[in-house]
């Protein structure tokens, strides 16, 4: 167990120490962005990696929370912490309603419905100008804290993000090893058998959906506080696609994958914005390259390599069933 925890502890500690080595807030803020993205990617990984449900509308969860907390703490004039609680609760309620729609299908139907759901909410944020500020979004979102906890300082905010990320890693790490986590992967691989041995496949998928929504909401809350600004762009197709890229590039179904994927995508995006102005095209090319060259992602590729070095066994064991199924 401790051997599994160690790499994560080292990674988080290294991120927490960035403010000690860098005087410029740029790298501290960049680390915060990685942490926030990783929390979201961990949430999406529950659906993509463990439930086998490929969502293309994940940005709707962080988007809803960010908009709710922004509206409540600016227009609504509520204290930031109370606004955060209402925002998280509201997101979970809306997510439960969305689950009733999205979980009617699996496979490609699920892909299309999640994408449509996110686009509808994006459209509302974009068009319902009187409430959401339209394309201008809502700005001036206050961070919580005060003299005793100066969260307006980049290093304190980074530590808050890292605490949430640590909680996400612990909770999800335990969940994936638990009876329910194993059952969730069972519904991914053999939904029919799971029903036949007494599991309620729909309810297990619902739990996975709500878990993904919860961590997505946490990421959205930190996002709104980090930028102190929300706009419809955080729910655009590209936003959902970026989170999906983090999961797939890192390795869906692994715990470390979303973390590594988040770091890669955030760094790539920041570097790209310095040198070239074509992030969307770069994102597109990255998808194409990953799909054609590294379909399982970095972490499974790496562990396959180490396993090969250890055992010097040239061929991986044949899979009994293909990983993709059209059971929708």
């Amino acid at each position: 167990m401790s051997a599994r925890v160690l790499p994560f502890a080292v990674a988080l500690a290294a991120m927490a120490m960035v403010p000690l080595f860098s005087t410029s807030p740029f790298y501290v803020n960049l680390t915060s962005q990685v942490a926030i993205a990783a929390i979201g990617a961990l949430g999406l990984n529950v659906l993509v990696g463990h439930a086998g449900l490929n969502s293309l509308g994940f940005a709707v969860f962080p988007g809803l929370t960010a908009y709710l907390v922004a509206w409540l703490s600016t227009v609504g004039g509520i204290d930031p912490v109370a606004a955060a609680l209402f925002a998280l609760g509201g997101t979970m309620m809306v997510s439960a309603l969305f689950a009733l729609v999205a979980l009617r299908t699996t496979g490609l139907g699920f892909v299309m419905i999640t994408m449509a759901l996110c686009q509808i909410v994006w459209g509302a944020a974009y068009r319902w100008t009187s409430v959401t500020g339209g394309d201008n979004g809502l700005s001036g979102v206050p961070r919580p804290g005060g003299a005793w906890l100066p969260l307006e300082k980049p290093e304190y905010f980074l530590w808050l993000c890292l605490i949430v990320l640590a909680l996400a890693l612990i909770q999800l790490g335990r969940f994936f090893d638990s009876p329910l986590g194993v059952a969730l992967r069972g519904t991914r691989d053999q939904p029919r058998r799971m029903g036949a041995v007494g599991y309620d496949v729909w309810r297990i998928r619902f739990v996975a959906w709500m878990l993904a929504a919860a961590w997505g909401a946490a990421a959205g809350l930190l996002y709104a506080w980090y930028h102190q600004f929300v706009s419809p762009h955080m729910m655009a197709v590209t936003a959902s696609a970026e989170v999906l890229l983090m999961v797939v590039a890192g390795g869906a179904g692994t715990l470390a994958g979303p973390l590594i994927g988040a770091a890669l995508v955030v760094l790539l995006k920041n570097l790209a914005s310095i040198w070239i102005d074509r992030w969307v095209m770069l994102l597109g090319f990255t998808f194409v390259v990953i799909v054609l060259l590294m379909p399982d992602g970095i972490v499974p590729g790496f562990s396959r390599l180490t396993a090969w070095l250890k055992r010097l066994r040239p061929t991986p064991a044949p899979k009994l069933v293909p990983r993709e199924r059209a059971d929708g």
Partner: protein
Amino acid sequence: MAEPALRIDGLTKQFGGLPAVADVSLDIMPGERHLLLGPNGAGKTTLFNLICGDLTPTGGSIRLFGSELVGLPPRKRTGHGLARTYQILTLFPHETLCRNVMLALNGLRRDKWRAWAPFGADAALRSEALAILDRVKLADLADRPVSQTAYGDRRRLEIAMALALDPRVLLLDEPLAGLSRDERVMVQELLANLPEEMTVVLIEHDMDVALAFAERITLLHHGRVVTTGSRADIAADPRTREVYLGA
């Protein structure tokens, strides 16, 4: 006379107007070993899928020890004491044999909703799973992933998954399909050692095994029951010959 374990009455399933199962009525008594016989496309597997709830019938009723199953989802039928195996292996390839059986054992228990304690650390569950693997002679492979086992072992695991539910009525869909001669003997022994009170319905094309096992036989053709009776009745019935050899 005692209540039948499984009573099927006027069961019909149509696919786009074509009947796959047509007006099937059948009584199977507790503890009976019952064989479903018939050429490919006779509706045997469709009948299984109707009984366990993977398909919804167009009409008719299915009663398990008196309670109606039609309208219940598959998982609720399992709760009534029904279990089945699949003709096409339906296992969890990334998990070990032991964890496959543990997963099946958990299906009817509240523990399946636990989301914090590690699954593998449940010693009681593990020893139960090992006992079931022992019944199908797979205990020594317990910690090997399914993806690294031979086909014959997977066939027996398929049976173990159903036995884990401790069913009162067990539906076996071609448990011998694709097995070598030695493996057949092993599975045959396994079937012979099933608890006497367990009701077993079997689909099997290996006539020697099937006839040695079954007490009563139902002959299906084009989704209809041609005849039901004892081994001798069916063997003597001219319609058996007709179904298999004639038009």
